[in-house]
């Protein structure tokens, strides 16, 4: 039943007074149904400048070849694969929020899953551009597919993690897209039924004719649950396979069995940091403070702290195993990371990923919006350095000292990377302009059970144990969207 009231000691997921179903629709659709404000235009202009830079740098790469990148014979893989793994990792939070938290019945996912899933899709698109770009001749991508050919047929090497990756990333992208779009159907229908003229026609096509009848909703819920069930192992498999691109090689520094769990934790870590970066801004600019509350922010910070600690343990384990293995090449690879010419990259990684996220143990910090935002950016920087450290510092000192080299990015490397961030933000800003950034149907589900007003009503009607009410009121203090004065005398 919709009116099932939940335990008072749980923090509210929707705050504010006089929230109705209609108000949820109006609040969420405000950016879609009105012309965007100044903040959006500024953001969009900057992002599209970045995207143009990407188009230019990628065209340059394809025209003049990969020689325009800073790669050399020793470091044959650098910013391209760093950027690829970074973007794929960022994508993982969307699936984690929409699938894993659905399986665990974490209702706080309902107001952040839509934008996180969109972020997943855009991040995976950015990652995929790196795969095509690093081939130098992008049409060569066809050779990664098992198609009959005139060489025998000579098939692709199914024993190679690089081929597994082709299937993992393409499956991940397409399944995420299906999951996201199916979830969007009811909300697109909402826009359709409120729109007029050409907008109504466009959203009508996009809505697939959704009506919200009983049978459709029943099937919709089955589909969501099963998609969540298969996406959960999928997301773990994707980053496991990405890590195997390295772990199955014989390169000291890569050849470790800890890579799969360590990469998966790192992916969730960086993904949540990116969700935090985007949502802290979006909630303010789009006025969604009542739906993306301090509880959501704090929960995400807790996950960042946890996964950051897992990553920290993995770093230390790697060091210990290098020592314990008594393999001098392995030991040298790690000594070189810590104190070699790339020491600054290693220590940036350690600081940003292991040390600063520990600040989230302090409640004051995890409930502070500007600090959370800065720390989320720090985590993103740290996770970029992690991939750079793993890739470049393992490669640059080869087995033969005569081939030792350093990697220096050219302007093309830098522009492709900065440009990909522009591409990502361009897509995200277009998304919040044309589609609802919060899953309205799912948030409406929470209104009668988990909202502040429902809980206040319970308290006012005296259905609540006083001690529990006190606990609940104390937990409301951190919320910036709750009118604290209303609870003073209670």
């Amino acid at each position, binding site marked *: 039943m919709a009116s099932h009231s939940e335990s008072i000691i749980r923090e509210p997921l929707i705050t504010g007074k006089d929230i109705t179903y209609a108000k949820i629709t109006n609040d969420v659709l405000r950016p879609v149904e009105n012309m965007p404000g100044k903040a959006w235009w500024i953001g969009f202009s900057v992002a599209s400048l970045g995207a143009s830079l990407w188009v230019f740098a990628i065209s340059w790469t394809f025209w003049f070849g990969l020689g325009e990148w800073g790669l050399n014979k020793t470091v044959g893989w650098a910013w391209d694969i760093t950027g690829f793994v970074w973007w794929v990792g960022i994508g993982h939070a969307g699936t984690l929020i929409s699938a894993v938290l659905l399986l665990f019945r974490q209702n706080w996912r309902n107001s952040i899953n839509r934008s996180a899933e969109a972020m997943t899709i855009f991040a995976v698109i950015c990652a995929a551009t790196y795969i095509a770009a690093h081939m130098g001749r992008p049409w060569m991508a066809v050779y990664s597919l098992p198609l009959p050919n005139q060489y025998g047929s000579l098939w692709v090497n*199914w024993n190679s993690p690089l081929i*597994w990756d082709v299937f993992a990333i393409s499956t991940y992208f397409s399944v995420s897209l299906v999951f996201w779009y199916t979830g969007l159907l009811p909300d697109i229908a909402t826009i359709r039924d409120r729109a007029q003229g050409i907008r109504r026609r466009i959203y009508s096509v996009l809505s697939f004719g959704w*009506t919200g009848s009983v*049978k459709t*909703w*029943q099937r*919709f*819920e089955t589909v969501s649950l099963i998609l969540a069930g298969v996406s959960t192992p999928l997301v773990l*498999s994707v980053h496991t396979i990405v890590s195997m691109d390295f772990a199955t090689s014989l390169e000291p520094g890569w050849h470790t069995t800890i890579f799969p769990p360590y990469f998966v934790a790192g992916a969730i870590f960086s993904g949540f940091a990116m969700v935090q970066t985007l949502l802290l801004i979006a909630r303010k600019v789009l006025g969604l403070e009542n739906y993306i509350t301090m509880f959501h922010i704090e929960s995400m910070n807790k996950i960042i702290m946890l996964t950051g600690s897992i990553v920290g343990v993995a770093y230390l384990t790697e060091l210990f195993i290098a020592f314990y293995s008594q393999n001098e090449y392995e030991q040298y690879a790690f000594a070189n990371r810590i104190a070699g010419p790339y020491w600054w990259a290693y220590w940036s990684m350690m600081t940003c990923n292991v040390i600063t996220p520990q600040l989230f143990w302090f409640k004051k910090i995890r409930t502070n919006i500007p600090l959370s935002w800065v720390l989320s950016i720090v985590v993103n920087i740290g996770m970029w350095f992690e991939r750079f450290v793993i890739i470049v510092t393992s490669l640059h000192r080869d087995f033969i000292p005569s081939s030792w080299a350093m990697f220096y990015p050219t302007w093309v490397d830098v522009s492709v990377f900065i440009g990909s961030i522009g591409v990502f933000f361009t897509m995200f800003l277009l998304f919040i302009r044309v589609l609802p950034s919060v899953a309205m149907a799912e948030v409406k589900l929470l209104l009668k059970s988990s909202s502040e007003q429902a809980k206040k009503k319970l308290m006012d009607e005296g259905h609540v144990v006083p001690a529990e009410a006190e606990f609940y009121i104390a937990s409301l203090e951190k919320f910036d969207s709750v009118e604290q004065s209303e609870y003073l005398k209670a």
Partner: protein
Amino acid sequence: MSSTKYILGVFDDPDDMMHGIDKLQKNSVPIYDVYTPMPIHGIEAKLNIKDSRLGYAAFMFGCLGGTIMFSMVYYMLVHDWPINIGGKNFFAIPDFIPVTFEWTVLWTSFGMTFTFFFASHLFPGRAPRVMDLRATDDKFVIAINAKGSIPHDDITNLLKEAGATEVKHNDRKYVSYE
């Protein structure tokens, strides 16, 4: 004979709507369908709607996808062009697992979702069969076919008693978009 084709009970609150369903059923008024802006649990049971069988479809599609991928890799690596890698087995099953798994997931997801779209008649360009435009926003709508023998006023009263904020007697089944 009135020209009313469908009677719509429009509710503001999902609990009132559930109450309305109970009331109508107690008075043997057949319900055509219910339209809601969000999934309301328990309606299916009241309306005697059978469980979705999409789970079986998902399972079958998953088995199919996994089998196709495994057989394809087997054909290519073991049968068509075995490659000697340090004398290891051609039929190296552990190496087959990642791609087999990916295709199991891929086929499960696409097979099930497209079965859902097919069964519910959802496709781009389908004209929405909407009875009340607010049912995707903030109203909970019970639709009753007016052809039955029960007097329309009785149905209206039942809906009103249950807490309907509005009862509509529609001459057309669907809201026209033109």
